[in-house]
Structures are given as structure tokens and as C-alpha cells.
């Protein structure tokens, strides 16, 4: 391979690596943000529905209690209706408690995204610093060697970054999770 070809090959390797690793990290950022959006949307929907149902249940109970206070007979039907309304409110409170857990999952996803962006900034910063070592009067062999080192460091740092960003949240819905007893 000629010296010119070597230089071209190293430039190509560096640019390809930069593009591939940058693309991989940004795709993960995009995936995490989309997942966060799904979870937030479902949580808000669930919480909104629970809030309305609790409000309606409490209002219906109040109506019945007002009737009883005003002297109406506490018929078995009225008692049964109050019990049904209480059960419905309890069920909707449970649903709200499940929905309220969105913060735990979304904060983990956002934290992972923030760590990835900070790590990517460090990787790009290191590429920039190494690139600054290429001087206008550098020998071609030196440039080739430097580009090779930059590519290698970029690949290593990007892989290392990925390895510390374990994804602990795979949920895309706010439905309650599985339970397994050992």
C-alpha cells in the first residue's frame, strides 16, 4: 500500500468509526427517550383515568351518605351500593399507585441517557484533543500513526462507555410486572 493510500485508509477508518459509534450511541439515546415518552404517556393516561374514577366514586358515595343523613332508610341496596363504590375507589387507588411509579423507571432511563451523552462528549473531546496534535508540517507517517491511534482510542472508549450503561428498564407499559416466588 502506498503512503497516500495508507493515509486515505486511516482517514476512512476514523470517519467510519466516528460515524458508526456516534450512530450507535445516538440510536440508544433515541430508543431510551422514546421509551420514556411511552411510559410517561401511559402513566398520565392511567393517573388521569384513576383520578376521574376516584372523583366520581367519592361523589356518588357522598350523594348516598347525604340521602342517609337526610333520613332515607339504609336499605340493603344502599348498603350494597356503598360497598361497591368503596371497592371501586380502592381499585382505582391501586391503579393510581401503579401509575405513580413512572418516576422510578423514567428517571433511570433519563439518567442512562445523561450518562451516555456525557460519555460521548468525553469521547469526542478526546478525538478533538488528539486531532490537535496533527500539525500542518507533520510528516505523513506521523499523521497515519496518529490517526490509527485516534481510531483505536475512539473504539475502545466507545465500547467501554457502552459497557457501563447497563439497561435495567425494559418496560414499555405501566402495567404491573410479573411476580415469581422461588
Amino acid at each position, binding site marked *: 500500500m502506498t503512503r497516500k493510500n495508507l493515509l486515505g485508509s486511516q482517514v476512512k477508518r476514523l470517519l467510519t468509526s466516528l460515524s458508526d459509534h456516534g450512530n450507535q450511541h445516538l440510536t440508544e439515546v433515541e430508543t431510551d427517550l422514546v421509551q420514556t415518552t411511552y411510559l410517561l404517556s401511559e402513566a398520565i393516561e392511567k393517573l388521569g383515568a384513576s383520578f376521574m374514577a376516584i372523583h366520581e366514586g367519592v361523589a356518588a358515595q357522598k350523594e348516598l351518605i347525604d340521602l342517609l343523613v337526610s333520613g332515607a332508610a339504609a336499605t340493603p341496596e344502599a348498603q350494597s351500593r356503598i360497598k361497591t363504590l368503596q371497592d371501586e375507589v380502592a381499585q382505582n387507588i*391501586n391503579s393510581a*399507585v401503579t401509575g405513580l411509579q413512572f418516576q422510578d423507571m423514567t428517571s433511570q432511563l433519563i439518567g442512562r441517557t445523561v450518562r451516555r451523552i456525557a460519555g460521548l462528549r468525553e469521547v469526542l473531546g478526546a478525538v478533538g484533543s488528539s486531532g490537535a496534535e496533527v500539525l500542518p508540517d507533520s510528516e505523513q507517517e506521523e499523521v497515519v500513526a496518529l490517526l490509527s491511534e485516534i481510531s483505536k482510542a475512539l473504539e475502545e472508549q466507545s465500547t467501554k462507555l457502552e459497557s457501563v450503561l447497563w439497561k435495567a428498564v425494559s418496560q414499555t407499559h405501566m402495567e*404491573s410486572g410479573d411476580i415469581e416466588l422461588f
Partner: protein
Amino acid sequence: MAKSILAVDDSGSLRQMVVFSLRAAGYQVTEAVDGQDGLDKAKAQVFDLVLTDQNMPRMDGLTLIRSLRAIANYQRVPILMLTTESSDDMKAKGRAAGANGWLVKPFDPQRLTEVVKKVLG
């Protein structure tokens, strides 16, 4: 006397939901903000059940379980994991560490209290 439960999670909002659900079911709940805090509190008082998250600063859930199982008072105390992690690999690690069950977040309060009741006998 109400059974005592130690709830370990670094998420304040999640602990709040666990406390709300279990206290409503009649249990005494003590909170710990991470595995190390959980271990310290477990050493100061023997709980009837420990419910722990996995990914936490200072000490994760698996390390907490291993540490608790090394303490004589905690060799038979039920320990449940409550975590976003749902892979078979992590569940196997939990089981090997000494967990008695694995609950994937988000939890439903009724199902949580049913499991706690069952595990506590």
C-alpha cells in the same frame, strides 16, 4: 403485633408507594435509601421481611441479600426483590444470592400485599 418490613429503594417516590401500600395492609414499614442503609438498619433491628430494589448507589440489592444471609438472624427471613430488572439471568442471580421471590416494577398494591402475606405465612 404488626409484622415489620424493611423497604429498600433509592427512589423516594417508589418507597412512598411501597409504604402506602403495605401500611394500608397493616404492616409496619421502615424505609432505607440504598443497600448500605438497608444493611445498617437490618443490623439494628430484625425485620420480618425485607423488600429490596436491585440497582442502588453504594450497595446493590444482590449484595445486600448476600450480606443479610451471612447474618444469623437473617438466614430464614424472607427477602423479596422489587426491581425494574426482569431478565432470567438476573432472577437466577437473585435466587442464588438467597432471594425468596422476584417482583418486577411497577407493582400493583393488591398483588404486592398478597405476596407479602403469603411469604410471611
